[in-house]
């Protein structure tokens, strides 16, 4: 990391340090005059405490050349042009190709170079926080440099800059949290991203934008609804337990579908139980009761017989199956939406208790929509960090594809939904807990609990494809593992909707 630091120092105009660009493993030339420097936002980092020698070999894990090249490239402004990594693969596409990418004009060159530099800086910061040669001071410096380069503002940020802004903020939070020894749930209670600070209308506007610009919301809802419709085709009563109902928009289209079933059968009576949180600081847009009222009114308007119930979680937000009121003869469906606009990533214990607890209710069907992060494995912080960076850069790109000229719209969605999610995800992997239940997905948890997979029907797959056709070309849907439809953006998988059921009990 020597190169980085030297470079940064040069930028800060500290005349006593020569800016060397030769590859060297020494941190500083030893000098007797070490002036005290006050730097804005530096919080009193004392330069004297820097270690003079970096164990290059230890950092790079034996791949000295690669890493040196990497770090060099961080310093060089012409980074993108002569990059040592000559992989023959696309940034997103998994199709092998011998052609390098082609970019049009000089402005795009700079943008790519800048984007690359940000990536490198973020990696360096993450490495400094958690790598073999942990150095919080180094991380601090790198983050400071990053902050100069990035901004979440829509006015002057490209995708990468805004994305990097949130990652920087998240890393900063990790840095501070580590130094304060704070490991509480509300890590950013003072930051601007804490969900409850968001004005209600912000959230509403962002939610609407998200719906319009990207298929995430609709994909999850429609896939789940289609599976539900198929599963309860012959039932007189349907009961759905929804983990995070938000405004209940998913059920509007389900009700419509129930009412207009082709075979002319009378629509079944629909009952929805919404799980609500006991704690004081919950809610997205109005309360669960508000949602209930709205759903009742909507059902009345289309002639669907409907009733709405609420069920509270325990104070520690775990789920008690006994709180759900069941009626004999009804088809029970468990619905769990964990994807983008939902804020329930804050409570993985709660989700776990809900999913495993629902087994005792013996549901007909379980629909689960979650973010698809790919195999997490035991890669350690860095590989998961890179995974998240890659994941969210795809999300950002896809959002921008939805509203190409409207950076303000994207920025709002990012601020309301993505920023907190990023911070939270990084915090979770930093503290050694997998973003999704220690390295496995919620789907895997369901499988482990004893649920069986339900095949995705042709109609469901077809519907997903048609839905994506309404949005940008870059989206694609694929079927994985029989019971899962995965929505992806240009070869990065983003969201998966999976269907589960319990095996028939032996008589």
């Amino acid at each position, binding site marked *: 990391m020597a190169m980085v630091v030297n470079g940064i120092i040069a930028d800060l105009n500290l005349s006593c340090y020569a800016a060397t660009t030769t590859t060297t493993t020494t941190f500083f030339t030893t000098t007797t005059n070490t002036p005290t420097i006050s730097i804005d936002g530096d919080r009193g980092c004392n330069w004297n405490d820097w270690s003079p020698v970096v164990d290059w070999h230890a950092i790079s894990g034996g791949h000295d050349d690669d890493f040196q090249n990497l770090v060099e490239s961080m310093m060089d402004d012409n980074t993108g042009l002569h990059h040592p990594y000559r992989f023959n693969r696309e*940034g997103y596409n998994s199709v092998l190709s011998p052609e390098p990418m*082609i970019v049009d*004009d000089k402005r795009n060159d700079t943008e790519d170079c800048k984007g690359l530099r940000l990536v490198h800086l973020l990696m360096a910061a993450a490495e400094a926080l958690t790598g073999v040669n942990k150095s919080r001071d180094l991380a601090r410096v790198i983050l400071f440099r990053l902050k100069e380069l990035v901004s979440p503002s829509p*006015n002057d940020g490209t995708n990468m800059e805004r994305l990097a802004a949130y990652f920087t903020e998240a890393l900063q939070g990790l840095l501070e949290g580590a130094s304060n020894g704070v490991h509480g749930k509300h890590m950013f209670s003072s930051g601007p991203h804490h969900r409850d600070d968001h004005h209600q209308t912000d959230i509403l506007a962002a939610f*609407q934008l998200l719906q319009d610009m990207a298929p995430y919301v609709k994909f999850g809802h429609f896939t789940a609804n289609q599976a539900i419709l198929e599963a309860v085709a012959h039932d007189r009563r349907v009961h759905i337990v929804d983990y995070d109902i938000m405004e209940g928009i998913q059920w509007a289209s389900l009700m419509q579908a129930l009412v207009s079933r082709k075979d002319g059968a009378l629509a079944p009576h629909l009952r929805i139980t919404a799980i609500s949180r006991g704690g004081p600081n919950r809610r997205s847009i109005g309360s669960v009761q508000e949602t209930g009222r*709205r759903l009742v009114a909507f059902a009345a308007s289309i002639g669907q017989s409907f009733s709405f119930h609420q069920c509270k979680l325990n104070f520690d937000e775990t789920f008690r199956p006994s709180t759900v009121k069941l009626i004999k003869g009804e088809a029970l469906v468990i619905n769990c939406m964990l994807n983008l606009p939902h804020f329930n990533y804050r409570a993985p214990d709660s989700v776990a208790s809900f999913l495993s607890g629902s087994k005792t209710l013996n549901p007909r069907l379980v629909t689960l929509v979650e973010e698809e992060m790919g195999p997490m494995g*035991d890669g350690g912080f860095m590989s998961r960090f890179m995974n998240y960076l890659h994941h969210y850069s795809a999300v950002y790109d896809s959002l921008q594809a939805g509203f190409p000229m409207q950076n303000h719209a994207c920025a709002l969605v990012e601020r309301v939904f993505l920023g907190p999610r990023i911070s939270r995800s990084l915090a979770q992997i930093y503290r050694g807990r997998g973003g999704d239940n220690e390295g496995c997905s919620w789907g895997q948890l369901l499988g482990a609990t004893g649920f069986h997979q339900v095949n995705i029907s042709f109609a469901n797959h077809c*519907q997903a494809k048609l839905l994506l056709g309404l949005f940008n070309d870059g989206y*694609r849907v694929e079927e994985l593992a029989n019971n899962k439809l995965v929505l992806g953006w240009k070869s990065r998988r983003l969201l998966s909707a999976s269907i589960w059921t319990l095996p028939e009990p032996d008589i």
Partner: protein
Amino acid sequence: MFHPKKPSTMNSHDRPMCVQGDSGLVLTTDPKPRLRWTVELHERFVDAVTQLGGPDKATPKTIMRVMGVKGLTLYHLKSHLQKFRLGKQPHKEFSDHSIKDASALELQRSTASSSGMTGRTMNEMQMEVQRRLHEQLEVQRHLQLRIEAQGKYMQTILEKACQTLAGENMASGSYKGIGNQGVHDISAMKDFGPALNFPSLQDLNLYGSEQLELQQNMERSSLDGLMPTNGNMCLGKKRPSPYGGSGKSPVIWSDDLRLHELGTAPPCLGPQDDPFKGDHEIQIAALSIDRGNDIDCVSDMYETKPILTGDAMGEKRFDNSAKLERPSPRRAPLSTDRMNPVTNTSAMPQGRNSPFGIRSERPVTIVFGWRRCLRNYLYWFQGKF
């Protein structure tokens, strides 16, 4: 001379009969003798193609040479090879010139490739294709209804939120700085409310940056107390703000407030909207007719503007070439009574693809974009650990 084995001299019968020529080819005897691809012949064909390196490498000429079957013409091989190639790609996306044709084609391909070209009678295959086609049309119809239902529901939420907001405005009086404009917006929304399907933020496209600036100038002063979020967004760097620095990055706040206002008060036709008024009204009308496709409508409106930043993404799309002609035909199947909004021109040949991957004609430099590098790093980390 009557050579019973020579197909060309056979009289046509009412039913197509197959005769075997001396080369071993089976030809039908209808007026236009057509080659019948028997299982064996097809197998020989597949062998030859594999020998030549796959359906994309093989050409009719070379296949003919390799197969060495007399009587087999280039014409036969050309059409069979084409069908074979298409049959090999059952994962091709919906190409939507008309969704009916495309899906029929796709279904045919997939059923053909899965069942073998000669494994079934034409009737069976056709029935299968028809069945799937029907199902697909059903799905399409239902999808449209479901999207509409969601839109209607979203409407009720927005109306409710608007009313709450109006109430707040009246009560708090913090809109004094904006004064009439704020209230006017709300009431304007109410008038237009029922007419809009996905209300709100599609109107963002009408609010170009100039518009936002205009609003911001007026609202800046009154915002500081209103928004609960603090101006920590700058992350340390003070960017020069055209509105003067109040130290709290008012630009961001103003944008956001504007946006949420837009979200709850969609058309907000204040006096400053005059330049856009014409377009706006037409758009509203279009939106109210064409319920299911507003997303489409919006995206296309954006793409009529030349977008350079998109190219900076630098992603090359391999399957681009097939999709150049998309915008209008794509939406046709979902809504037959669609009225195209004024600004939506289908003159853009690139359609949806334009920001992503269509190369412009300008001179190029070769760069590895940051996305590719990011992905490579990711693989590196995943591989090593």
